[in-house]
Structure formats: structure tokens, C-alpha cells
């Protein structure tokens, strides 16, 4: 039995549980498993896991409800697992406080990368955020409000800067349209997704080599944006 971080897996499909159990224990995680939302909530309270993998389509209750209930008392990272075509469910779960999502089917590498990002962010959350974010050729100095690309200064507008820093602070994690709009434009503007599209395009033109084939500022269609982690 490994002694790595404790992961709570809430998933009703036995095949999925089997595959995840094998992969995660092999990578040094310890695992508790729940089949229903009820069980999942109970185990989250009793075992205090370091990360939760949560399937959205559970037999007794929506995974969204589980997310909301856990968020009432805990900031443990939650990664939501869902089938394709449930974009609105994903967005709801993310807006309710989930940290990231994965679409079935997914590869183990993808899953492990997301888990690492989430665990890292949750460990950082206690202390002060790193004032310097470096992602590939991009370097963001939060203290000096300076952004450089391959050493050259990039001049950003205030909105572009706020968008970029917001994404950089959660690098590797998806941020929904709603979250970005609320943080940058204010709670009254959360429906104006076209603001985001236009400013993201501007931002890409400044930091991407080919804005039509981005490598840093990734689009999650129907959900939000993600700044690639250590690309």
C-alpha cells in the first residue's frame, strides 16, 4: 500500500474504478473509493482526502451537488470527470468550485498532469502566491507588473494584464468564462463572453507566435481558457 497523497474517487462505473485504481496506486497515490454521491460526501468528511476525483453522472445525485456541499466547508481540490457533450454541466461544476475537469475517455498522463497541477495549487494556497510565473518563453513578474516574452518586454493593456495574471496564477487549470468576466469586468458583465473573445485574441497576438495555433493560451470550447503549465 502506497503512502502518497490520499485521493477520494467517486465513480459508479466499476471498469473506470478498476482502471483508475490500478493507474493511481501504481503512481504512488493512496485511494478511497465511493460509488454514490452519499457515500462520497461521507468519505470526504471522514477521510479528509487531499484530492477528489468526482464523476458527474452518479446514480443517486448529481456530482454538481456533491461539489457544492463539499465547498461549504473544504477547499480540497476537486477534479470533475464527465462524458463529452456535457459542457454546461462542466461549467456549472467549475463555477460551483471544482478545480478542473477531464472528458472521458482520457489518458492516464493527462489525468496525472491535472492532478499534479491541482495539488500544487492547493499547497500554494496557504502561503503567498509566487510573484514570478515562468511558462516556457513567457515570464510574468507580478511584483513589478512586467511581462516579457523571450526576454523582450510585452506591452499589455490593463485588461489584458489582468486576464493574463489571473490565468497565470492558476496556470494549468481551466478558468471559466464566468470566472474571468467576473474578476476582470465585474459581476454585472458575466454574460458578455464576446469581451473575452476579443481580448483573448489581442493577448494571443502579443504572446503567441501563431495566434491560430496557440501553444500557451489554450481554449476550452464552451468552457473557458487555460494557460498551459510549464509548456
Amino acid at each position, binding site marked *: 500500500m502506497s503512502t502518497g497523497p490520499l485521493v477520494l474517487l467517486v465513480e459508479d462505473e466499476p471498469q473506470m474504478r478498476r482502471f483508475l485504481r490500478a493507474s493511481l496506486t501504481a503512481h504512488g497515490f493512496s485511494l478511497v473509493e465511493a460509488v454514490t454521491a452519499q457515500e462520497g460526501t461521507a468519505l470526504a468528511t471522514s477521510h479528509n482526502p487531499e484530492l477528489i476525483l468526482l464523476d458527474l453522472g452518479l446514480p443517486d445525485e448529481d456530482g454538481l451537488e456533491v461539489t457544492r456541499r463539499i465547498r461549504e466547508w473544504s477547499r480540497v481540490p476537486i477534479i470533475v470527470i464527465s462524458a*463529452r*457533450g456535457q*459542457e454546461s454541466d462542466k461549467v456549472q461544476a467549475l463555477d460551483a468550485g471544482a478545480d478542473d475537469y477531464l472528458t472521458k*475517455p482520457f*489518458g492516464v498522463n493527462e489525468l496525472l498532469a491535472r492532478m499534479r497541477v491541482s495539488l500544487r495549487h492547493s499547497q500554494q494556497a496557504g502561503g503567498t502566491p509566487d510573484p514570478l510565473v515562468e511558462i516556457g518563453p513567457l515570464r510574468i513578474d507580478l511584483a513589478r507588473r512586467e511581462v516579457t516574452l523571450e526576454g523582450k518586454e*510585452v*506591452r*499589455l*493593456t*490593463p*485588461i489584458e494584464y489582468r486576464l493574463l495574471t489571473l490565468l497565470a496564477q492558476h496556470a494549468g487549470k481551466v478558468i471559466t468564462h464566468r470566472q474571468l468576466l467576473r474578476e476582470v469586468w465585474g459581476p454585472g458583465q458575466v454574460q*458578455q*463572453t*464576446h*469581451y473575452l*473573445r*476579443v*481580448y*483573448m*485574441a*489581442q493577448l*494571443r*497576438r*502579443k504572446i503567441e507566435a*501563431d*495566434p*491560430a*495555433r*496557440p501553444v500557451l493560451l*489554450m*481554449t*476550452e*470550447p*464552451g468552457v473557458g481558457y487555460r494557460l498551459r503549465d510549464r509548456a
Partner: protein
Amino acid sequence: MARSTAQRPPSRGKLKIFLGYAPGVGKTYKMLELARELASQPVDVVVGYVETHNRYDVSALVLGLEILPRRAVAYRGGRLEEFDLGAALARRPQVLILDDLAHTNAPGGLHDRRWQDVLDLVDAGIEVQTTLNVHELESLNDVVAQITGIRVRETVPDTVLERAADIELVDCPPEELTSRVAEGKVRFVDQSRRAAAPFFQHGALLGLRELALRTAAQQVGDAVLELREAQAVQSTWPTAERIMVCVGPAPSSARLVRAASRMAASLRAPWIAVTVDDSRLTSLSEADRERVESHLVLAESLGAEAVRRTGDRKSEVLLEYARRRNVSRILVGKPTHSRLRDLIRGSLLDEIVRGSQDIDIQVIAGEADAPAVDGGARPARRGRPWAYAATAGLVALAAGLGALTRSHLAAPDFVMLFMLVIAVAAALFGRGPSLVASVLSVFAYNFFFVPPLYTPWVADERHLLTFGMMFAVGLVTSAITLHLRRQESDARTREEHTATLYSLSRDLSSALDETQAALVVAQHASELLGGGAVVLLPDEHGGVAPRARSGAELPFGERETSAARWAFDHGRFAGHGTQTIPESRATCVPLRSGPGPESLGVLAFAAPGPISLGIERRHFLEAFARQAALALERARLAEQAKRAALRARTEQMRSSLLSAVSHDLRTPLAAITGAATALRDETGGLAESQRSELLETVCEEADRLERLVRNLLDMTQLEAGALLVKREWVLLEEVVGSALARLEGRLGNRPILTDLPTDLPLISVDPVLLEQVFVNLLENARKYTPDGGLLEIRAHTEAGATVIEVCDRGPGLPEVEGARLFDKFVRGSHPGIPGVGLGLAICRGIMEAHQGTITAENREGGGAVFRLTVPSLVQPPPVPAEVDPAEGEARP
């Protein structure tokens, strides 16, 4: 006449009638005796309603039989008990005993008359036993009146008697009956003893008894004939008869109609009641028109076909119509007017007899007491004193004018002046005033202009001729005027009807489905009738439910609903203005497309004023309903055909899907199973390179399987119309970017060139779906483009739309017709390239959901180009500008 007892479906109940010649002969007694016998057999017998009149012998018979609870009705402050039709239909006994077929129900029931209740019960498959006095038969009404001097009001149509499978004659000698009456054993329901007295005079009883015996014998004879017909012994039967009866305004016409009905019944022949609207100068008064109308309604209720013809010469019209309809006999009333009139106007009877050739003519006597009504003598418009006053004023004006110009004008000028006044009065005010004008003019002319002046005397007798001619001109002018007016109004009505039907059929022809057709019908009906109209169509519970409404709000309560239901079930008019549920606010017209009672729906309407359902109105409404029914039928058939076609297509799709899926799902599965088992069962013989190759196979094939399943799911969603387009304002660059990111590593080393101008406007699309289009197109391009081949994505704006092109350098498109390329399961003929042929179909489905298009063509220099067009339906919203430090100016 419809007499098809033999062919009637067995599901209908039997009707047994106990026929007697007068009240008190013991019909009820006999009926109950037999009912007790039946009940002891045992048969499920229920007493629906029997009036015991507190007679102990009858009450004793009812004892022990199941009695249906009666329906209490509040009526004129009192309380009445009535037979409960609904309860009987719910109870559904085998045999129902129901006294007094001719009974009139208290208001508030489904029907006005009990015989209608009985027909409903029989239609519902319940055997009904009932009683009837012979004098209550509609066709014998006149004969009975002759015998007894009483005109019976509660009559039963002969068709009901004909529906009876059994007629049991209940007889007793008249002497015994008279003594029973004297002993007070006979009670009367709604007639006072004095009113009933003429029935019980010995002579009358004898006559009625004979009638009853004859009627029963006739029905027995009919049964024998039916049997004979059923056994195909037809040689003794003459060729088919058809009877025509000529109906006019005289009250004796009703008698003529009844005689024709009896004759038709005895000859088992269809019959037609015809009236001719004379277009000559003698026109009918309103009262006469109403009488003709009532005669036609009577004829229809007795089973005739009622027809109205128009023509100059009555006899010609009648004979022409008779020939056309193969009539074998014509019934005409005996003329009651003087011979002099025949000499002047010609005799209708003479003309018919002369022109009849092979058609038999039968002349039936008119009633002696029939008032001779001269249709021509009645003024058409009365109660308009101002018109008469104005006429008098006109005459006075003419006299004054004449007096002023007396020195300049000659006597004939004055005559012309008064003629003018008569003509003007006729044109403006109608018949009465013009006659008054004639009289006044003659008088004024005489008084003021004929010597000796200012006296009513005449010096020269020649002037008497002038007076006569003036008066005659007045008469003729007024007759012509009246006739013209009536013709005009008739023509207008007819034209309105034609126009209404035409516009209805025109609007119906563009109705695509039942609901649209129903709405068109409701709109036209409410326009035409000036009130609210509702069209009800069959619902899934076998009833009818409102589908379309128009015009004023028509409250649809319980009564209206049951009237509509009845009209639908029986194919006859119901509700307001009819005898079935007359309390309903709506009149319900069944929408029938054929002659049968099957309805496709019901039109219910409420006219603001009182409604009259005369023959003409009824026929018009029937024509209206038929148009509506035909359209509904057409819509229903079209829907069925569409559904059948869809089913066929689905069937075809399912089979091609099965074959495609079975191949394309099994291939990757086979590879995965093979590779996975090889790895599992490995015993150390595999080299590292072989192991990784097997693992690669598993991953690649699983990926392929995933894409296939995704495509199938997308297609199913598109097919089911379940695709939700969540439009957002997006930039094309971003969608292309996320599609390329999703395909990362899957495109191999094929370079991709994107040429997207930075000034492309925001487009309103579902980013997830549009991304899917790009993924499918690029995967398609990858499949057909060899390694190293360049893929291009270009865009530009063109005529208010954004046009995107995805180009490859593959082998180009096969010679498949352009549009078919985007059909399901259509694939280019490229052996060795896997695929089901769904990718492009999904692209087209998604583009169509966006009101966009997708086309494909071959590219100059080899390869294919797929062109997407996304229309800009609305202006993109503005984005607040911000000063860009990189450029030093406001953006975007």
C-alpha cells in the same frame, strides 16, 4: 330511404316497439309482463322509465325489476323526473324498458325527445323495448287529424318505427277500452281528459285501430320483403322506384310530404322533395318562404332528400329535374284555386301531366280547411310608416309642381309626372308604398288636373282609361321592383356563399397540417358567422378536443363539449338551434367528408344573434363542413404518408448503419482484443519493440473507436432534431485554434497554413459545434492527403457572410454529385481508407443548424476545397475600447 336493417352491423341493439291504437290498450302492461318473463330467464333487464300512473296492476309488475334511478330536473319552479340516458348508457343492460316513445324531455337533457334517446341506446348496442301509440307516428299525423280532429304535437318520425326489429301490436276491442276509460283505468300524462276525449269516441277508436293494424301489417310485410331480398328472390320486384314530391307554400304541402313518405316507405323507394323558386313576377312573401322551408325540413326529417331549384317555368324545371334523377313517380297537390287562375296563368298540374311522358303523376287532395294563401297579395315590407309618409309627400310634391307649371304643361305631362312618382316610390320604398303611390296619384291627378277641377268627378270618360292604366303601371312596377330586390338579395346570398366556400378552399389548400387547417376553418367560420368558432379534432381518448379557436371567446363548458361529442359520434348537427342539447351555447356541425356518419372533427360556433338552421343554411353549413373535412382528411393522409416515408427512410438508414457499424466497430475492437490478449498472455517472448507496437495499436484503435462512437452520437442527435445550438459571439481564429489543438499529433507531418485576416468580425455560432466541423473536415483532409501534403484554412468576408475554406492536396473529390457527398454513409471510393461516411453529414447538419451552408469542389492544381458560409444575421455587439500601450491608440 335508408332501410338497411339486414346489413346493419350486429353491434347495434334491437328495438322492439309495442304498438297500440290508443292510450289504455295495455301496451305498458304487456311490455312489463314480457320483461318479467325475460328477467326470470334470466336476462339482464332494467326498467329505464315507466309511468305507473299509480295503477296498482302496473306497479306490481315493476316490482322486483331493476329500476334505473331517474334524473331530477327543475322545471318552471317544480320538479320533474326524467329518464337518465347517461345512467342507462353507463349501466349497459342487455334489455332496457322505456315507456312512451313519443315523450318530450324536459329541457336540460341531451335530447329534446325520447325517441332520440332510444336511437342513441340502440346505437350503443342496448336492446330497447318501448311503447308507441299509432297516432303519434309523424306520417299519419294528417290521417289522425282527419279521424279525431286533433292535431297531435308529440310525433315520432317513421324512420324510428322502421328501425324496429320487432313490432308487437297490442290490441283490445274498442268497447272494452271505452269501458276502461269510463272506469277511470286509463290515465293521461300531459293531456287533460277533455283534450283526449275525441280519441275515445267509438268511431275514432275504430279508425285508429284500423290504422294500427295496417301499420303493423305493413311492417310485417316489409320484413317479409327484406327476407325475400336477402334470399335474392328479386324477380317479383319491379325496377327501382324513385318518388318526387312537389312542395309549395300551401299548408296542404305538409300533407303531401307525409303521403309521399308513406308511399316511399311502402314502395321502399328513395324520395325527393322539390320546391321551385319561381323567378317570375309573383314572388313569395316571407311567411310563405318560411312555410316552404318548414315543409322541406319535414321532408328531410322523414327521410327525403330536400332540393331547391330555380327557374321560370315551374313545370319545366320540375320535369327536367325528375328526368335527371330518374324519378318514376311525381306527387302533386290537387289545385285549390279557381279555374280562372289556371286560364290566366296556366295550370302547373296540366303542364306537368302533359310533359310527364313515362313518369307517373299522382295527384293528392289538399286539405279542405286549408286556408287559401295567395302569396302575391302580401306586402313584403310592413311597419315602415315613414316610407308611406314619404310616398304621400312625393305625390303631394308632384301635385304641387304640376299646379305651379299648369300653364306650361299639357295633360300627358302630368300623367308622366305621376308615373315617375310611382316608379320612384317602387324603387326606393318597395312594394306597399308603390301601390299607395298608384292610388294617391290616380286620385291627385283626377282632383287637380282633370276637369272638373278640384272635384272627384270626371267629365270625360276617356280619363277613366288613363286612371286604369296609371294604376296598372303602378302594380307592374311594384311587382318588378319587389322581384328584382328579392332576386338581388338571393343572388347576393348565393354569391356570398360561393365566395366564402371559394376563399375557404383557397386558404385550406395552403394549410400544411391538421392544426393549420383547423385554424383556417375556425377563422373562416367566425368571420362568416360573426361570432366565436372552435374546431375540435379527435383526441387520443376517442373524444374530441378543441384544436383551434377564432373570433369572440366561446366558453366551452360541459354542455358544449357533450354537444360536440354527440355531433362527432353521430355525424349530425347538435347544440344550439337543434333538437339535441339545445341549451348548449354553441351549434356543433360535424365535419364529414363523405356520406357516412364518420366525422373528422367538429366545428362549433356561436352566432351573436338567434340562429336559424333552415334547409338552405343547413346545406350551406354542410358544404362548408365538407370543405373543411376534405382538407383535414388531406392533411391527415399527407401526415401519414410523411410518416410512412420517414419510416422507410429510417429503415433504410438502419440497415446501412448496421452494415457500416458492424464493420467499422468490429475492426478496431478486433485489433484491441488481439493486441491486449497478446500482451496479457505474454510469456516473455515479445521483444520491447513488439510490445510497444502492440500498445500503440491498442491506443490508436481505441481512439478510432471513440471518434466513431462520437460521430454516431452526433448524427443521432442531429437526426432526432435534439441538437441545441448555443450561439455565442466568437472569433474564428479561436475556434480554428482549438480544433487544431484537439487534433494535435493526429495530423502527422502535414503542414498547416492558416490565413485568417485579423479584421474578421465576430460570428454568432456554437463554438463547440463549429469546432467539431473543423475537426471533421481536417480529419477528412488528413485521410486523403498523403504525408507532407499542405492543408490550408482560409477565410474572408463576402456579402455579409463569413466564408471559410478548408483545402487539401489529396486526390480531389470523386465524381459523386456535389450534394450527395454530404449524405449519410456516402463515401468516396478509396479502398483502404477507413470510415463510415458520417463526418461530412455531421458537418452539413451542424452548418444547416446555423443557417449556414457547406459545399465542396475540386481545387485547381489537385485536391479538394470545402467551403463553409456563416451568415451574419445580426450586427456583432460592441466591445468597450481601451487604450493599447503597444499601439498608442484606442482598440479594438
